[in-house]
């Protein structure tokens, strides 16, 4: 089973898009630098002077105005009860997740075109439960049990107990037990004694289910991220921005047994973000954001005991690598209700199609499974106090998974974000 940890996918903060600031009366739009863009300059100037209609929607690539600080405190309530198998079919492994997280996000507009960001996620609660009966019906369980039994079956065949791998597998499935206590070496290097008289398949079930048996997860600080966003091109209805950042392994990971799920990812990652925003009509923004991440520095991961997945083995820690580009992003449509009437200027709604393609996790250069991908749908609404010169915003978003492959747990996220601004 791949790592179940609280990375950005859960907290949903890494390079979280800077929301609209452009239209607040106190702040000016970034001035277009190209001398030829006189129309844009004129419109910007006119808007500044005329203080025109306000829309609680803006492109995701918008940077903060110079000298502006924004503090965001999101609150995530995350649940999950299913995932997706390798064929994209919904699968229920019997796992139920309930977790909450927050973060402290500090952003600062260095110039009108460049913002800096510091993000410190914090896991508040991390609870996961497993229903063994449901898990035992899953393909994952069956595959792991079959793999365990195949190893025993080959030994039985070598001893002449049964004539073929198929017959030996059938014999084990029928409840065959060894007549004498027998030690076997598990992949972790641990020694397991198969007791005489205990059906071998009971051990298979115990070990496979035991490896998935969760305990209360770790809480606390996650992986801290720092980054910047630069507005490459900006017009009143179109913008392109790029950003870069680092995620640092400040969360717990390396020495966290599998049952407890750490708060971080364990590696140093570099991220490159791209935003393209377009407003086909006033107050209506269509945007695309993609963030490509590449591991810069690998980490380590101590092995979890197969006999008790709440414990670590004494074996030397394994080298962790994340191979391949990890892409996360979304397509967004945001609409300021101010287009209906300016009395609703403080309200906005948005919807997103979100996607993610994970990198491949390798421990000691052994892949831990195929790359996972996921898709989700997000809908949300926001209240923008800036419409009333109040430097506060509140947004609520609800994200539901709609598809994926090789996803152990596809999360449903309820995200409440509070934002406050301050201008030096």
């Amino acid at each position: 089973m791949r790592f179940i940890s609280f990375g950005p996918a859960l907290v949903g903060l890494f390079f979280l898009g800077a929301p609209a600031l452009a239209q607040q009366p106190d702040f000016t739009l970034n001035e277009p630098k190209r001398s030829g863009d006189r129309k844009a300059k004129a419109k910007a100037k006119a808007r500044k002077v005329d203080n025109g209609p306000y829309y609680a929607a803006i492109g995701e690539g918008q940077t903060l105005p110079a000298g502006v600080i924004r503090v965001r405190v999101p609150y995530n309530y995350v649940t999950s009860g299913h995932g997706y198998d390798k064929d994209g079919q919904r699968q229920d492994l019997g796992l139920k997740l309930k977790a909450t997280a927050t973060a402290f996000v500090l952003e600062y507009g260095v110039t009108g075109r460049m913002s800096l960001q510091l993000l410190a996620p914090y896991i508040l609660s991390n609870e996961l439960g497993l229903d063994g009966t449901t898990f035992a019906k899953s393909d994952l369980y069956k595959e792991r049990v079959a793999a365990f039994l195949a190893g025993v079956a080959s030994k039985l065949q070598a001893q002449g107990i049964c004539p073929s791998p198929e017959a030996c597998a059938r014999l084990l499935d029928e409840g065959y037990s060894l007549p004498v206590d027998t030690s076997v070496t598990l992949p972790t290097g641990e020694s397991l004694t198969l007791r005489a008289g205990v059906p071998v398949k009971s051990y298979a079930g115990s070990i496979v289910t035991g490896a998935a048996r969760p305990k209360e997860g770790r809480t606390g600080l996650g992986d801290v991220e720092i980054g910047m966003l630069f507005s490459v091109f900006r017009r009143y209805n179109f913008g392109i921005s790029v950003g870069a950042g680092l995620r640092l392994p400040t969360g717990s990971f390396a020495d966290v047994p599998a049952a407890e799920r750490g708060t971080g990812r364990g590696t140093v990652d570099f991220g490159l973000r791209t935003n393209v925003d377009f407003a086909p009509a006033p107050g209506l923004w269509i945007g695309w954001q993609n963030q490509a991440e590449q591991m810069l520095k690998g980490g380590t991961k101590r092995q979890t005991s197969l006999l008790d997945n709440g414990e670590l083995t004494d074996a030397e820690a394994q080298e962790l690598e994340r191979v391949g580009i990890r892409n996360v992003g979304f397509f967004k449509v945001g609409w300021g209700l101010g287009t209906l009437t300016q009395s609703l200027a403080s309200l906005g709604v948005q919807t997103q199609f979100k996607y993610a393609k994970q990198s491949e996790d390798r421990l000691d250069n052994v892949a831990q499974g195929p790359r996972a991908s996921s898709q989700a749908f997000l809908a949300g609404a926001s209240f923008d106090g800036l419409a009333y010169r109040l430097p506060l915003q509140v947004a609520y978003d609800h994200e539901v998974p709609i598809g994926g492959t090789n996803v152990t747990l596809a999360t449903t996220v309820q995200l409440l974000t509070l934002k406050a601004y301050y201008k030096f």
Partner: protein
Amino acid sequence: MRLVLPSTLALLLLSLTAACGETPKNTNVPPPPAKLAPPPSPLWENLAAALGIGINQEATEAALRAQLATPSSYLASARAADYAKLVGTVAQTYGAAAYATRCAEIVAVQKLAPAKLVDPLTGKAEDFAGATLHLMSYKLQADGSGKAETNPRSGLIVIPTTGSANSVIAAYAHGGDFGLGYAEVAAAFGELQGNHVVVAPTYPGEPLCKQAADAATRACDAAGVIVPAGTRGAAYDADADELLGMYDCVMRAGIGKADAKMLDETGKDTGVTLAAALNPLLKRHGAGTAAQVPQGIVFGTSRGGLVAQIALAKTGAALSALSAASAANPAPLGPAYLSPAYFSCAAVVSGPASFAFAEFRLMLEQWVKGRLASTSFAAFPGMASLSGLFDAYRDGTVAADAAALAVVRRDAPLTAPLQLAALRNWAKFTQGTANGGPGAMLVLHGLYDKVVPISQAQLNFNVMLQASTSPTLVSATDPAKSPGLALFGRGFTPKADLLEGGKLKAGHFQHGDAAFFGSTAIIPGDFISATVTGQALPSEAGEAAANGLAQKIFSVPTPSAAQLKAARGYILAGILAADAVPKPVAAADAAGGETIHLVEEALTPAAAFGAWRLGACAAALTN
């Protein structure tokens, strides 16, 4: 200040949402590996208890080896009374269907070809002028009234072409479950076909093959089928019935109580009947109560080894039952049961002895639990017909004792007293005055046998030895004693070039293949060889007449604890390790009246069998 507000609100929301929904819990999760315990297995445990054996669960391999090497507790002296009761019970069940072992009709005897001599090492065959090969069709009794069954059975009969009153009837129980082929018979007897009337039945449900049975295809070889397979019977048990039944037909023909036309190769009547052909050839016991009865021996290889011993046990049970005849119950086995067989010698080559012992006990567990088809043991000869043996037990319609009895009926050590009762020098038997002389038994086995482990022969030999040397009486009313047994056993070592790292090379089995026939036994013999002196027969005897034959009350001895201890020495040494060559018992129990015979020179299995046939077996046939 502006920062404080959002944080406060967030924490407020946290407290609200965190209370939403149930906290996930782990449910229905199996215990960790360290806490797994053996589940109760009453079906197996109850059956094991009924058989007096362990349940194959031990912490260490050494403990398991010791457990598996411990035979049924019925064989311990402390349970002598239980053993006697068990033997009595199984004798009763044998007796209840004793008619199935009796001949009802010889349908026809047709010549097939001249006999052959076959080199077991090369398979090369040549004509043997000393005997001819015939197909015999016959019917056994369908019930106690003597009514013939509907469909005839088939077997091979080899009849010497020359000789005068010097041929012994030899019941041959073949190995495997592919069918009976003459090549196996010819290889087993060789030139002994010249002075033995060899009677070789198929087993129920098996074809009769022209030449040999092909182990690879599990069918008659390319030479084809003489008689196709009929209805399958319960292996070992029904096999023994067929062996005894065909032998009975020939024995009756030998004393003129049954007959049939003899046909030539084309099916034409030769004008000679079977009785007429056999009468001048057969050697009779010549003295004592069974003076007119043709001498007989029984010989089995592999599967047939156990079949031969069960046939002996059924014969012993019949003799014991007949000995209880009285005015009130003149025919304990039914009015049509005239006479049992009168064997003097038995040879068991590479035969299994007990499914409840040693390596086979591990398979018995899977068999009882209904997993036989998934094990290698499913291919063991006869298992195809026995896979459902414990179905009724698992269904709960048969009790453990009854299910155990199905095992005992196919177990040589647990029926050893009945075998002893059947095997003796009948020339020295006189009703009421002489108990007969010792019979002769030969046990040959490959020490590295991969099909039937050597431990089977070790148990077989030692239990027979102890049974014959410790004639503890079972019947409180009958002080009769066993006449004893000349028992020879040899474990054979394959040629050195077939061994690698102390184990037999791949592709060799030392079981009916060249690795067995080419192997040798070198001094000292790997099994003990013992001649047990005969013991005087008290005057008491039952009386029943059948064709001039008398019936006898027979003792049912059981081995002593001390003898079993010696037996376990063998068993422990050989169990589970083919490369652990067992050592012979160091000294004989002089008090038991036995003498030890060590082999003075290297012997091949064929030479050992020939020497035994001309030695101990001949002695058992000498009046």
